[in-house]
């Protein structure tokens, strides 16, 4: 979902140009920082970090001790082991020993995610260019409509869209193709809106100069729009990557046993407190590795995307 944002300043600390204002700002700051505020900040930082560390530690508990011993007990007697990761990834993950290994779902997540990022970004950039720079009748109305569609709950579209993709019509439900199409459709409103915000800020002179030279819309799109909007494309792509990789609903509705991504079997087994419950924490940790790498290495673009005026749900 998305909303218009007031003008924002970059996340990075503003660099004061004069030494004088720096000291003044620092003084004002010192008055603000009380020991209570510092203590509260430390507590918040801990509550927001420790659970993830606990997940990792719990995934190292041997299966036969999972029910009875806490991770700090096992840590203390040196019983932690990486065996669970091997078992989950390469042997089987599920409520029976013939369930497929998690590695299969890792591949499914990749196959589901990559096209579901490329399709809406490309189509969104094309439409964003048209809405930003080509005047046509109904342009404003259509753009506002697309903007409003961002907050429409997916739930409202699921049943009929599944029928459209289903066996009586396109026959793509349960296939990767169906999941890609569903993800693409649900991503388009955000994609068009976010890229439009960026593309509309390209200096008019740049486009007009090309236009005077006789460039067509196609030529402008490939020569000017694509190269200049790469930063926005990167932000959106990271956003969409995390969204699709972490999605459960769309994949559960439009996918099948052949296409289910990591979230699906983990969600199923998490509520099952049977003898294979110890496989859930390592699986959950594995599912987070790729998004965490993407997040930490590209955090700057991600934040820029958020500040560009939108987020989605």
């Amino acid at each position: 979902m998305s909303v218009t944002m007031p003008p924002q300043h970059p996340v990075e600390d503003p660099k004061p140009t004069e030494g004088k204002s720096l000291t003044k700002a620092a003084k004002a700051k010192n008055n603000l920082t009380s020991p209570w505020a510092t203590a509260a900040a430390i507590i918040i930082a801990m509550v927001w970090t420790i659970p993830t560390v606990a997940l990792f530690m719990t995934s190292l508990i041997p299966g036969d001790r999972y029910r009875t011993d806490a991770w700090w007990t096992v840590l203390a007697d040196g019983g932690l082991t990486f065996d669970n990761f091997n078992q989950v990834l390469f042997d089987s993950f599920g409520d029976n020993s013939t369930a497929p290994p998690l590695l299969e779902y890792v591949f499914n997540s990749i196959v589901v995610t990559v096209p579901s990022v490329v399709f809406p970004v490309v189509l969104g950039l094309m439409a964003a260019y048209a809405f930003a720079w080509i005047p046509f009748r109904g342009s404003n109305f259509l753009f506002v409509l697309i903007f409003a569609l961002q907050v429409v709950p997916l739930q409202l579209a699921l049943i009929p869209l599944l029928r459209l993709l289903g066996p009586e019509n396109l026959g793509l439900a349960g296939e990767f193709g169906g999941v890609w199409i569903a993800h693409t459709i649900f991503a388009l409103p955000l994609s068009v809106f976010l890229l439009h915000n960026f593309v509309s800020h390209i200096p008019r002179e740049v486009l007009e100069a090309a236009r005077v030279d006789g460039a067509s819309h196609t030529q402008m799109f490939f020569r000017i729009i694509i190269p200049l909007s790469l930063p926005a494309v990167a932000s959106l792509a990271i956003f969409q990557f995390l969204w699709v990789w972490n999605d459960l609903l769309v994949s559960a509705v439009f996918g099948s046993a052949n296409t289910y991504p990591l979230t699906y079997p983990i969600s199923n087994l998490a509520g099952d407190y049977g003898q294979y419950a110890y496989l859930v924490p390592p699986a959950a940790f594995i599912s987070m590795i790729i998004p965490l790498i993407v997040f930490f290495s590209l955090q700057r673009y991600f934040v820029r995307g958020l500040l560009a005026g939108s987020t989605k749900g």
Partner: protein
Amino acid sequence: MGSTALSGRSVIAAGDLGADFWASQGQNLLFAAVAIIAFIAIVALIMFGADLIKGGARDKVQLVVLVAPVLLLLGVGLIYPAVDTTWLSFNEITNEPDPDTGIFTTTMSFVGLDNYRFAFSDPSTLRTILNTFVWMILVPLLSTGFGLAYAVFIDRAKGEKVLKSLVFMPMAISLVGASVIWGNIMYDYNQVGEQTGMLNALRELVGLDPYNFLRDSPWNTFWLIIILVWIQTGFAMVILSAAIKGVPAEMNEAASLDGASAWQRFWRITVPSIRSTIVVVLTTITIMALKVYDIVRTVTQGRDNTDIVANRMYVLSFVEGREALGAALAVILFIFVIPVVVYNVRSLNKVKETH
């Protein structure tokens, strides 16, 4: 018995996965690569094809090429389904044998507001709607509250970037992953023996009895809400922190010289200056909270009065085959967001006017 099953799951290495496994995974990856290349090739082909047209029609055709895919996909894949779902919610689907032929036939008949009447009178469904309302109120308030407090506390502090990353990190974690972290590890409760859940171990440490977080209604809904708050606080914090940095330092200085306390400066300068951003964050998280079904599905599956509309809608439509009632719940979700849609479109138009 359990131990034999456990030892049966012997650890094997990647090399032991059959050739079938790698063949089918390779095929899927190849399929995705081909799909992407084909997609880009087709788009490029159509666009350059439209470039060969001579004369005045060229611009028009190219405009159509640029916007038609998005309009078509949204029209067919989002707008039509939304209208269709709304229509379905006023109907009843029955699957009964035809009185003449005896063949089972599915018929749709208009029943007006019956599905809605049922939703608001059936106690468990009504509870689902009320729970959703609680999520909708608490998640934005708590996330924005924590996010704002943290943003203010760490503003210009040493190591601010790292401190931000720590709280922002859950944004990268799936709701399913977060549900496992909290549901299976933080809230874990053992009736006997050592408490393996972190929070119950902590309670024991300070001499309290262990507590079954996920069973005790209505508080269990609150513990589920905390999971989403844990994720959304980072979002609120990053956006609000950027806004706080936009507040001129001189305003704070002047107030400080006039003897205003930090608390007064926060309420009289910071909050009014970033008011519009706070509203944006609140509405964004409200929408998010309405649609999320992953947490309830993963942690409690709606047991013990924790169900919410988004999860019940999924179960009714795709597990129990009661699509008409599921459609009514989807429409109820939409009705909850209509005020936000109206507000957003208004502020978009305001932004457009000022440009």
